[in-house]
């Protein structure tokens, strides 16, 4: 049972997604665990074959309990050692639940939307109540058993149920509300902004796109994502999380891409390892991610692990973005619209395409000086697009 938060002592195994004998690959979702706060999908972080399942569905066990045994392919079945030993071997207890099963962190729980107590979840199942339609009155908007009972009583009357799209909408709104309120309550933001000359980048892009079939076109957003990732490699305090009173650097550079949904709301799923990908790979990932976000089929790992977020509201015409950091991340980069503006260089004023870049950063982690270096790195990298 992995630790899904500092305050978690135990969790209920809600559902197994694998059976003994199944092959599993790193990243597969093997189980759903219910905590007091939310249902969370547990991903496996090793390849192998499920040898035995040790905790039944519905069972509540303390953090550190071994949930299942995995063996490597080709390896003979292992005797099941006593629980204490297994706990060490298969699933180290908190706060290092990395060996067999690691679990998405807070933002995913938030984006999955609902805080539901296990009791309320069971009650909802008994009564056939859609949890997304229930208004939570518990701590932090958590849905309690009483809320479910109330919703069931309301639904029993001949009231037309809200269509699923509206339910999803309401759930998403609550999630955004909770995350943004937490951000503004807890994170001492500081804001910096700078204008970046985009003439090199745009000229390079135009020339490059002339050589390419339309299906392999590059968009300038790919350049922006890549420069943010490379700048985050230089100024590492922008990339990671504020957890339990200290900064934890991100294990890699996973850039969250803010995608506004036309029906309302937004999601910010991650493109993984942006600093290690080519522009072509980034384009493919971005096209795929946006398409899936529109269709509502994002993966848990994408929602759980952005280490920094980029928002480009420029397409809607705004010049500058003053962003709100997505907790527990520590920085958000905003890009406005590219417009032609007067630009003085080498004693001459000319018209150039210019973009305003902004940084919202967590003052508990970094200071304005480092933030300034980070923004300057973005501006510098965009002057040499052929090297991106």
């Amino acid at each position, binding site marked *: 049972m992995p630790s899904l938060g500092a305050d978690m002592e135990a969790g209920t195994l809600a559902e197994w997604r694998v059976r003994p004998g199944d092959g599993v690959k790193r990243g597969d979702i093997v189980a759903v665990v219910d905590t007091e706060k939310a249902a969370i999908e547990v991903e496996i972080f090793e390849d192998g074959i499920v040898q035995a399942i040790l905790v039944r569905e519905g069972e509540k066990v303390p953090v550190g309990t071994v949930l299942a045994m995995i063996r490597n392919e080709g390896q003979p079945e292992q005797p099941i050692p006593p629980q204490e030993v297994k706990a060490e071997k298969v699933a180290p207890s908190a706060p290092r639940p990395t060996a067999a099963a690691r679990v998405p962190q807070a933002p995913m729980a938030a984006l999955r939307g609902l805080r539901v107590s296990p009791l309320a979840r069971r009650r909802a199942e008994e009564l056939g109540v859609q949890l997304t339609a229930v208004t939570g009155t518990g701590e932090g908007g958590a849905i309690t058993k009483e809320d479910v009972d109330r919703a069931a009583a309301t639904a029993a009357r001949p009231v037309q149920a809200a269509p699923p*799209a509206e339910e999803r909408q309401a759930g998403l709104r609550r999630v955004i509300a909770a995350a943004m309120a937490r951000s503004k309550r807890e994170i001492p933001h500081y804001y910096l902004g700078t204008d970046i000359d985009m003439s090199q980048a745009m000229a390079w892009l135009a020339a490059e*796109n*002339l050589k390419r*079939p*339309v*299906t392999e*076109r590059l*968009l300038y*957003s790919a350049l922006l994502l890549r420069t943010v990732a490379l700048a985050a490699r230089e100024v590492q305090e922008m990339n990671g999380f504020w957890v339990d009173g200290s900064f934890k650097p991100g294990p890699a550079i996973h850039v969250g891409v803010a995608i506004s*949904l*036309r*029906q309302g709301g937004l999601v910010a799923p991650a493109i993984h390892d942006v600093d290690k990908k080519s522009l072509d790979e980034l384009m493919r990932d*971005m*096209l795929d991610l*946006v*398409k899936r976000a*529109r*269709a*509502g089929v994002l993966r848990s790992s994408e929602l759980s692990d952005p280490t920094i977020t980029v928002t480009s509201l420029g*397409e809607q015409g705004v010049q500058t973005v003053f962003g709100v950091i997505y907790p527990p991340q520590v920085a958000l980069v905003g890009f406005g619209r590219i417009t032609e503006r007067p630009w003085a260089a080498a004693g001459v004023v000319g018209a150039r395409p210019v973009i305003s870049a902004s940084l919202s950063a967590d003052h508990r982690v970094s200071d304005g000086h480092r933030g300034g270096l980070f923004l300057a790195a973005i501006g510098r990298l965009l002057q040499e697009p052929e090297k991106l």
Partner: protein
Amino acid sequence: MTAEQIRETVLRVLGSVAPEAELQSIDPRLSLRDQLDIDSVDFLNFVIGIHAELGIDIPEVDLPKLATLESCVSYLLSKSEVERVKR
């Protein structure tokens, strides 16, 4: 390929790029991007989808011709004629 078949294909691809859009209410003479609020990534997905469905190459310079539903259909129709004659 008829204009009607192309129109259906265009609408189907738009539906996959913007699943929540109300395609029936599109005004064929107004900009698709404005009406459906699609951004540059969605638009590129649309172009790639059209290419995959119809097998028509769309050079960069022709992208403005895909701006409205009407212009899309007439552009793709003429392109598919050219491709047919070539074969």
